[in-house]
């Protein structure tokens, strides 16, 4: 008898088969068996949800792509602009440059012009209200000279400054070129974005390049990032994002993640919308003194993905639930959520980073010996469960025991993950695991041993 084709079988497993197929199935037990198995498999796979990445992860990838490209992973020739911009970033991060239509002046940074439509507008002289000590101005072909209050920045002038406060003579749109990266999270204020910042302001705007902060009254910032134009409209504390890809216009999910340079958040300002952003209101949430002096020296601390500093240091940050990252010297970053509450001590625990298995891989034979040794020594681990049972006769749970085993078989580190067992049992398992003696592996290895603690027959 000719059997049904795989496609027909799959279809028959999905829905009631056509009459012809049904007839065949009544007389073909083998085909019925195939349909039954296909049904089982379809049921098994039904409802599987595709996984994706968080926005933070997408941003990490984007940042790493930029790094990778800058590091020369790809052929450089067609990407000269990229190199050029990278060089410009390194040479003059966040320097403020105004270039005239005649092109770049000596000493200025010229950012290549991408093929986007440009608009022109009359240039009004800008008066320098305040500038940092190292700020310099260049008029026409003259040399750079220190910038001081009262100077006029004319068309054709070039400015280089860490911090400068400019005021237009009248309400005028003006442009700042800057480099850096845009971060919508973290305790810093707006971090100036990749390639260009355009601001249309009706009031003085202050750009503090060294700290990458921006202060302004009602202002509209347009930041080009990753080629997609995103408009941040900062109006009375509200932040809207217009995404050119989707065309969507929406409020930033967590405006409180955007902070002014004094640490107050836009959210705080929105709650008191009538107050001016120039003089930000006192944050509704209190400050927290973040004391990192107890951490190992040079441990890098970050909050919400933004670097706070390297231990030892003491800083003041705003309170709230923050994503705390700790990177020990030479180690990998460990992240955890931290509830920073004013007046309450907070202890940052530095988890021991897992040792990467970079060495040669242990061979299968060595692994088999280790597995046998683990099996043989399981009663030691079981003793932890027995102790727990004495305290709680119905105790049961699961745990993954992670062992970092040295080349000679010594358990260097042990920790538990995904534990649904008591804390005392977890601690006992870790202590016991460290005493295990395993055969030499020939290379460092990290082993994960899932354990289910339950009484036989349950």
């Amino acid at each position, binding site marked *: 008898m000719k059997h049904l084709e795989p496609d027909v079988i799959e279809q028959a497993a999905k829905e009631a088969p056509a009459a012809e197929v049904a007839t065949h199935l009544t007389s073909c037990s083998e085909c019925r068996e195939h349909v039954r198995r296909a049904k089982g498999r379809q049921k098994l796979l039904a409802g*599987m949800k595709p996984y994706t990445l968080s926005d933070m*992860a997408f941003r990490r990838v984007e940042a790493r792509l930029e790094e*990778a490209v800058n590091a020369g992973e*790809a052929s450089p020739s067609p990407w000269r602009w990229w190199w050029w911009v990278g060089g410009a970033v390194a040479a003059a991060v966040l320097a403020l440059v105004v270039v005239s*239509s005649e092109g770049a002046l000596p000493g200025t940074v010229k950012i290549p012009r991408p093929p986007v439509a*440009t608009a022109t507008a009359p240039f009004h002289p800008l008066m320098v209200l305040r500038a940092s000590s190292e700020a310099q101005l260049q008029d026409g072909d003259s040399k750079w000279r220190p910038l001081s209050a009262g100077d006029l920045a004319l068309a054709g002038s070039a400015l280089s400054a860490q911090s400068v406060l400019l005021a237009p003579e009248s309400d005028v749109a003006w442009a700042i070129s800057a480099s850096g990266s845009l971060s919508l999270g973290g305790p810093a204020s707006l971090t100036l974005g990749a*390639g260009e910042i355009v601001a249309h302001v009706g009031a003085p705007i202050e750009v503090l390049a060294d700290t990458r902060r921006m202060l302004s009254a009602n202002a509209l910032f347009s930041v080009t990032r990753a080629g997609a134009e995103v408009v941040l409209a900062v109006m009375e504390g509200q932040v809207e994002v217009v995404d050119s890809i989707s065309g969507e216009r929406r409020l930033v999910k967590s405006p409180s993640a955007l902070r002014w340079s004094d640490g107050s958040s836009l959210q705080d300002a929105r709650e008191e919308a009538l107050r001016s952003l120039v003089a930000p209101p006192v944050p509704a949430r209190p400050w927290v003194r973040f004391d990192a002096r107890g951490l190992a020296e040079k441990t890098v601390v970050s909050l919400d993905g933004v670097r706070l500093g390297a231990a030892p240091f003491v800083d003041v940050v705003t309170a709230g639930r923050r994503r705390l990252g700790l990177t020990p010297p030479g180690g990998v970053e460990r992240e955890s959520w931290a509830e920073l509450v004013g007046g309450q001590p907070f202890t940052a625990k530095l988890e021991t980073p897992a040792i990467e298995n970079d060495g040669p891989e242990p061979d299968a034979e060595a692994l088999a010996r280790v597995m046998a040794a683990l099996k043989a020594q399981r009663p030691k681990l079981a003793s932890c469960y027995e102790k727990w049972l004495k305290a709680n006769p119905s105790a049961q749970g699961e745990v993954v025991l992670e062992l970092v085993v040295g080349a000679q078989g010594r358990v260097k580190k042990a920790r538990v993950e995904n534990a649904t067992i008591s804390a005392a049992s977890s601690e006992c398992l870790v202590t016991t695991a460290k005493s295990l003696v395993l055969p030499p592996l020939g290379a460092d290895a990290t082993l994960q041993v899932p354990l289910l603690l339950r009484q036989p027959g349950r």
Partner: protein
Amino acid sequence: MELSLYSWQSTGLQRAPVSTSAARADAVERARGGDVTAFRELYALHHRQVSRQLAFLVPRSDLEDVLQDVFIEVFKSIRRFEGKSAFTTWLYRLTVHVAMKARRKHTRSRLDIVEDVPDQADERPTPDAVSLSAERQERVEALLEKLSPKKRAVLVMHDLQGVEAQRIAEVLETNILTVRTRLFYARRELEALAKDDPALADFFPGGES
């Protein structure tokens, strides 16, 4: 005198342009011509779609790294894109190939003792405990990892992403017969693996006899 700076905007509220298919095609063309801003645009336009396509093709834990690898490959290879097919088709093909390659690398370097400890099979949760779909998902994902890259790719594309066999053949640059054969063996292997997992074996109850 005029100030001409690419970041210059004249006045008023800046309206961000809405992306159109023409703009997307333009981004591809500019990327081919060496415009880095266009490369950034391509990432902005396609990263979510590529991420969705990578689901199940690579382990959840590797997704971020493989997504990065895909765009590095786009960066390296876009000059070879000749426009004979749609860019998205080219990108999908590249995504699948990078995913398969990534998994091979993963297989070589992976050390996973858990799956090799035979005694622990009887300690796994009973089928009842797998009624939660999240756990079933986790277990099925683990099974997918045991398939070879070729079988996994075909099974995932066909049975989870709903891609037709003919299109899979095009993406993998093979013929439809090979796709069907791989699919047959992949399904059979998945079934056998599921039967070995006490928590999933109930999906395949015994036969008629």
